[in-house]
C-alpha cells in the first residue's frame, strides 16, 4: 500500500506548523512524537503512520481557521472521529495533521415535533439513541461499533448496520450537515426539513470518506421505537435452501427489520463462544427479525415461518422474550471475535453481491481460500447482499498473511464479477483503493474524482484515499486480527 510521497519541506516545518496551529487552538495541539502516536492508525491496524501533529478543535470557527491555514500553507489534513474505520479512512499522513473531532461531543437539539436531532460529529452513534430513549425515540442506523463510532465518522463512511435493509444506511437518515471546506468556508447543507435547495450536495458528502469537507454538525432523522421486536432462528441443511428462502421472503413482499445468515464454520464458532443455542448440524443459519406493532410482528413471523418450512428448514425457533431475542443476536454479533478464538489470525472482507449469487459466490470463496491453503467462515447481511468472509490464517507461518491478503483481493474481485461491488459498508479507504478500476472504468473514476476539485482544489483533504494512485499496486488488506485480538476487542463487529 503506497501513500503519496511525503513533502519533506512540510515535515521540516513541523515546529512552525505546530506553533501556528496552537495560536488557533491554544489548548488543543499535540506536536510531539509520543503524543501523536496513539493517532497512528484506525480500526485497520495493519497500517500505521504517525501524523505531523494532532489538532483537537472545539468550535466550527477553529475548524475553519485550521483548514484555511493548512490550505494556505499546503499542509494536508486527515479528519478523524473515533478512529474505528475498517478501511483505513482515518490513516494519517507523515506530512499532514490529524483533525480530531472528539471534542465536538454535544447533542445540541432533540426536536421531536420535526423528528430530528442536531448533534456534533464527535457524539457516538449509540449516545444519540440513548439521549432520546426516554421519549421512545431512536436513531436507526446501527453499525456494530455503535458504542464507539462517531456520527461524524458515520457520515463520512455512510455507515450501515444490521437493520439497514428496512431503515437505510446513514444517508437516508441524514437531513443536514454543517460542513467546512478546505479553504475554511462554512456551509449548511440541508437541515431539519426534508429537502434541500439546489443540488443534493448532502447526498454527495455522505460517504465521501473525508475527502470533501469536515462535518462540524449533523441533523439526523429520528424515529419512534417499534413497540415490538421478535426474531426467528432458522436452520437449513444447504446454503442453496437458505438463499432461496431469502429470495422467497422478499418476493412475498416482506422487508424484515433484519435478515442475517451465517455458514457452518461461523455458526460453530459463534455457538462455541456464546452458547446462543444455535443448531450446529446445519449448513446455514438465518436470523430474521420483525418489528412494529404486535399485530405486524405476529403477521410477519407467521409468513416467514411458512416460507421457511416450504424451503425445507430443519430448525426453526421464535424468540419468546427480549432476553431470548438478544441471545439469538449475541452469537451473530460475536461472530468476529468467535472466529478470532479458533484462528490465530483472520481478516474480514466486505463486498456486496446480488443475493441470488450467494451459493455460487460462497463456493467460489471456498475454492479461492482453499487454493491458498486457508479456511474461511462467512457471515452475510442476507437482506441486502452484503457479505463478510472471515479468512483465517496464522501470521506466524511464513507466507500465510500474504496468502490471506491475496485471497481477500480475489474474493472482492469475485464479488464484482458476480454483479456486486467492492464494499457494502466498510468503505474504500486505503484498503480497497487500488481495486477500484475493477469495478469502475477510467472515465467513471474520473467523473467521481474530479468532484474533489470542486470542494478541495489543492487536494489537501485526506489525499491517497478512495481513488487509485497512479502506481497501482496489488497489495490489499482488510481488517487484520493478530493473536485473536481485535483492534477494539470490546466492540461487536458484523
Amino acid at each position, binding site marked *: 500500500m503506497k501513500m503519496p510521497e511525503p513533502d519533506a519541506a512540510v515535515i521540516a516545518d513541523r515546529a512552525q506548523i505546530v506553533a501556528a496551529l496552537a495560536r488557533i487552538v491554544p489548548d488543543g495541539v499535540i506536536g510531539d512524537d509520543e503524543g501523536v502516536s496513539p493517532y497512528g492508525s484506525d480500526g485497520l491496524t495493519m497500517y500505521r503512520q504517525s501524523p505531523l501533529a494532532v489538532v483537537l478543535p472545539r468550535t466550527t470557527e477553529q475548524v475553519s481557521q485550521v483548514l484555511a491555514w493548512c490550505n494556505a500553507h499546503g499542509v494536508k489534513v486527515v479528519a478523524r472521529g473515533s478512529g474505528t474505520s475498517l478501511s483505513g479512512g482515518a490513516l494519517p499522513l507523515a506530512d499532514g495533521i490529524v483533525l480530531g473531532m472528539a471534542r465536538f461531543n454535544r447533542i445540541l437539539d432533540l426536536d421531536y415535533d420535526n423528528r430530528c436531532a442536531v448533534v456534533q460529529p464527535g457524539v457516538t452513534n449509540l449516545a444519540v439513541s440513548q439521549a432520546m430513549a426516554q421519549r421512545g425515540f431512536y436513531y436507526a442506523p446501527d453499525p456494530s461499533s455503535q458504542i464507539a463510532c462517531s456520527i461524524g465518522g458515520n457520515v463520512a463512511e455512510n455507515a450501515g448496520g444490521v437493520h439497514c435493509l428496512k431503515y437505510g444506511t446513514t444517508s437516508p437518515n441524514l437531513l443536514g450537515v454543517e460542513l467546512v471546506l478546505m479553504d475554511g468556508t462554512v456551509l*449548511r447543507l440541508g437541515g431539519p426539513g426534508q429537502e434541500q435547495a439546489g*443540488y443534493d450536495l448532502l447526498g454527495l458528502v455522505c460517504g465521501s470518506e473525508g475527502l470533501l469537507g469536515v462535518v462540524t454538525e449533523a441533523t439526523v432523522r429520528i424515529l419512534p421505537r417499534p413497540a415490538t421486536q421478535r426474531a426467528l432462528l432458522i436452520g437449513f441443511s444447504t446454503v442453496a435452501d437458505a438463499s432461496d428462502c431469502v429470495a422467497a421472503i422478499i418476493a412475498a*413482499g416482506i422487508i424484515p427489520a433484519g435478515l442475517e445468515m451465517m455458514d457452518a464454520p461461523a455458526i460453530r464458532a459463534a455457538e462455541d463462544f456464546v452458547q446462543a443455542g444455535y443448531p450446529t448440524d446445519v449448513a446455514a443459519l438465518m436470523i430474521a427479525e420483525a418489528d412494529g406493532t404486535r399485530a405486524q410482528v405476529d403477521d410477519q413471523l407467521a409468513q416467514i415461518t411458512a416460507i421457511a418450512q416450504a424451503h425445507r428448514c430443519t430448525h426453526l425457533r421464535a424468540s419468546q422474550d427480549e432476553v431470548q431475542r438478544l441471545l439469538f443476536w449475541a452469537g451473530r454479533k460475536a461472530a468476529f471475535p468467535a472466529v478470532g478464538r479458533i484462528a490465530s489470525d483472520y481478516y474480514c472482507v466486505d463486498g456486496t453481491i446480488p443475493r441470488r449469487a450467494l451459493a455460487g459466490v460462497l463456493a467460489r470463496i471456498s475454492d479461492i481460500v482453499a487454493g491458498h491453503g486457508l479456511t474461511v467462515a462467512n457471515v452475510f447481511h442476507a437482506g*441486502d447482499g452484503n457479505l463478510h468472509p472471515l479468512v483465517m490464517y496464522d501470521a506466524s507461518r511464513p507466507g500465510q498473511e500474504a496468502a490471506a491478503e491475496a485471497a481477500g483481493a480475489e474474493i472482492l474481485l469475485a464479488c464484482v464479477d458476480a454483479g456486486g461491488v467492492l464494499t457494502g459498508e466498510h468503505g474504500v479507504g486505503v484498503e480497497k483503493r487500488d481495486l477500484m478500476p475493477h469495478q469502475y472504468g477510467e472515465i467513471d473514476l474520473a467523473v467521481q474524482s474530479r468532484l474533489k476539485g470542486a470542494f478541495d482544489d489543492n487536494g489537501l483533504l485526506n489525499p491517497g484515499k478512495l481513488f487509485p494512485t497512479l502506481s497501482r499496486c496489488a497489495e490489499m488488506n482488510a481488517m487484520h486480527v493478530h493473536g485473536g485480538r481485535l483492534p477494539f476487542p470490546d466492540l461487536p463487529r458484523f
Partner: protein
Amino acid sequence: MTIHRPDTIDALAAIIREAAASGQTLAVTGTGSRPGIGPGPADAILDVTGLGGDLVHDPAELLLTVPARTPLAEVEALLARAGQCLAFEPPSPDPIWGRGSGSIGGAIAAGLSGPRRPFAGAARDHVLEVAGVTGRGELFRAGGKVLKNVTGFDLPRLLAGSRGTLAVLTEITLKVLPLAPAQATLALPAETAAAAVRLMADALMVDGGITGAAWADGQVLLRLEASAAVLPALIDAARLRLPALTVQDDAASRRSWTALADLNGLALADHILWRCPLPASRAPALAASVAAMGGQLRLDWGGALAWIALPPALADLDVHALVADAAGRDGHAQRLRLPAGIPSAVPAQPRLDPGLAALAARVKAQFDPAGILSPAATPGSGA
C-alpha cells in the same frame, strides 16, 4: 431552432461534445411534461426520447433497471403487477402542467417525492445506479446494481434532482419495494395549519404504520398501509390515541390520496403554484402569512411540505421571502407553475446562500465545464 434527437448513446455523446466545443447550449428534454422544472431556454433542444435500452425488472433482488425514456405510468403498472412500487411515490406532473405523466428519467431528474417521503425516503434514496453522458460528452456509469454500496462518491444521489444540468441520464437502476396490499385513511378535523401540524406531530410520535400525513380542506389525513390481516389492529390502536377520527376504507383511502396527488381543488388552471419544503413546525407561520395575502395552502409530509396556490393578482408575491420569514434558511420555495400570459418579477428557483451557489457552480463545472446542459435550470442561476 435545432432539435437533436439521437437514437444511440454514442450519437448523444457526439452531439454533446460538439455543443461543448462550439458553446451551443442545449435544453435537455424528455417528454416535456415538467415545463416548470426544466430545462428553460437554450440555443438548441436535446430530445432524449429516442434513446432506448433494455428494461430489466428483478423482483427478488428489489431491482428495476430502465431506460430513462420509459413512461412513468408504464413503470408503475409493471411494478404493481409484481406487487411492488417506487416507495417514494413520484408525483405525476400531469395535474400540475397537464402534459402527461412523463418519463422515469424526468421523474428522477426532477427528484420530486410524494407523500411517503418522510416514511420511506426520497427519490434520491432509491436510485442505485445511473448511466449517462456528462456535459463533456463522456459515457459514464455510477453506483451499482445492489442494495448496499459505499464504493466511491455517491453520484446517484447527486444526479437525482439535478435536472439534466450535470449529465444526461440514459439508464437508471432503482430500488423497488413491496406495495402494501391494504390501506385505510384516518380523517381528523383541523381548522388551522397549527392544529393540523400539532395533530400530525402527535400521531407520528408513535410507530403505528402511518405512511402519509397531509392537511387539506380542514382535515388531517393519516394513511395507514399494511397487510389486510394487520390493518384493523393498526386502526384500532390509532382510535385509542387520536381524537374524533373517521376511517376511510381501502377504496375511499385510495381516492383521497389520488385527489391529494392531483392537487384537487388547488391547482386551478389560472393559479400560480408554489412548492415549499420546510420544517413542519414552521409551516403554521407560513400558512398564516399565505392566508393573510389571500392564497391557498395545503400541507403534506406531516407539515414539512407546503403547496401554495396564488391567484394571478399575487404573481409578484415573493414566496421566497415568506418562507424565509417562516423558516429562515431551513426552508425554500420553488414556483412550479406560472400560467401563460402572467408576468412575474419573482424568480422561480430557490435562492441559494452565496457559498452554496459558488459550490454548486463548481460542481456543475466539473461535469459540464462549457455550461451547455440546460443552463437556465442550473441551481443558483437566478431563473
